[in-house]
């Protein structure tokens, strides 16, 4: 290194932070987290409302996906870690200002809750299931009798998990695109929408799908509203924020964002859902698949685009 040749301090290697450090694992993790949050939220909500009979898929069947999604998501996060063997330090280092720490703790709480929830229904899926130990049988009976007590923390932690998937990004304020508080609610709503789409796919009851379809339409409307505000907010911001928004309005991510997220991932499935509510026959798999794909691509775009934006030029 010939320091005498430097014109500017920026030329010193590695003095600019290296920002592009997240790859495909993170968006998948965020997607699975949002999906799990969505499913658990509605499972808990309809239990609290006392509608287990009408909403079988929501309350019983869909939650069985959640533990798998959470474990797979955590595995993605683990793959992304540089020092994989030190993952446990996330739990020994308690820092209130660290969103990573929050996430680790939220997952630490919600994963066992989801496991307990599934366990309490497992004998309805596999009637021959035997818990082997007496205390497990007793615990199961207790949960079955007191599902609402389990449902309350599940709903609350599902909301926290959903918001956290967005806050994880917005906490990195070195990336202008992410530096907005709207990401939390946006990812929450988007995650709930993917959760509802999954439940609809599983559900066999026409009535249940109708209720879920209405909810999903509302969620999509809110999501579009949040996305509009995210872009408007960025456009009203400083120059770097405007440049971040330009990625979506005539830049690298215009096509993938508008074509796959807005049109095919939100508006088109919303139209299909409206048609279904009016009694047209629509294969639910198409609607659900498009919503899930849109949600996944949305997270890929947000993670990729966010890492392209920066304050230093």
């Amino acid at each position: 290194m010939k320091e005498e040749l430097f014109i500017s301090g920026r030329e010193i290697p590695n003095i600019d932070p290296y920002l592009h450090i997240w790859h495909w694992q993170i968006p998948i993790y965020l997607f699975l987290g949002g999906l799990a949050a969505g499913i658990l939220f509605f499972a808990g909500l309809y239990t609290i409302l006392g509608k287990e009979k009408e909403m079988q898929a929501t309350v019983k069947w869909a939650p069985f996906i959640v533990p798998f999604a959470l474990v797979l998501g955590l595995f993605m996060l683990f793959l992304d870690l540089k020092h994989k063997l030190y993952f446990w330090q996330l739990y020994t280092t308690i820092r209130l200002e660290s969103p990573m720490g929050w996430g680790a703790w939220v997952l630490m709480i919600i994963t066992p809750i989801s496991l307990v929830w599934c366990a309490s229904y497992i004998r309805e899926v596999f009637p021959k299931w035997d818990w082997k130990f007496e205390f497990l049988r007793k615990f199961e009976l207790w949960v079955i009798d007191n599902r609402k007590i389990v449902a309350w923390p599940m709903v609350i932690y599902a909301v926290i998990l959903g918001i956290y998937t967005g806050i994880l990004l917005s906490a990195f304020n070195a990336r202008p695109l992410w530096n907005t508080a709207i990401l939390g609610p946006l990812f929450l709503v988007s995650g709930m929408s993917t959760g509802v789409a999954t439940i609809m796919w599983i559900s066999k009851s026409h009535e249940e799908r109708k209720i879920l379809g209405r909810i999903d339409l509302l969620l999509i409307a809110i999501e579009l509203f949040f996305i509009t505000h995210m872009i408007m907010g960025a456009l009203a911001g400083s120059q770097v924020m405007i440049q971040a928004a330009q990625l979506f309005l005539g830049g690298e991510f215009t096509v993938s964002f508008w074509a796959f997220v807005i049109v095919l991932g939100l508006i088109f499935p919303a139209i299909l859902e409206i048609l279904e509510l009016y009694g047209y026959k629509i294969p639910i798999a198409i609607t659900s698949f498009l919503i899930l794909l849109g949600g996944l691509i949305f997270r890929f775009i947000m993670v990729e685009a966010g890492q392209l934006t920066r304050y230093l030029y």
Partner: protein
Amino acid sequence: MDNSKKYWNPYFGGVMLGLLLLLTMFITGRGLGASGAAKSTVVTAVDVVAPAHAEKSAYYSKFLSDDKNPMNEWLVFEVIGILAGALLSGALSGRLKFVVEHSPKITSKTRLIMAALGGLAFGLGSQFARGCTSGAALSGMATLALAGFITMMAIFGTAYVFAYFFRKFWI
């Protein structure tokens, strides 16, 4: 029972299609198309399976560039749209159904074989003509391009000439 009412009046459909074509040309300077997306798919597939072969080939290499995925093409997006739009229309008029449509005189299997042969010929012919019924004939005619008229007359002329021999597949 007359289900034909469910389809649009052909002249209304034609005017709508013409206006869409006009709008497309006004915005993008090109017409509509369909076979180009299939070509992109083939180019991409060959590029994935045998990249060296694709790069060496005089035909594939025309559509390959280093900084752009061959699927990132106008026509690919348009065809994704066609699928979505047709699905929407089919859903609105209750036509969504897995079915092999064929004349009662032939079996489904015969129909599928003929469809495969037809598709094969169309794929081949669309490369010679630099476009299919949409890209070369319809869009070509709309810009009054000579190529559009030649291709259109060749397609329909040939089909009329051979129609007699294939009548049992349709009537």
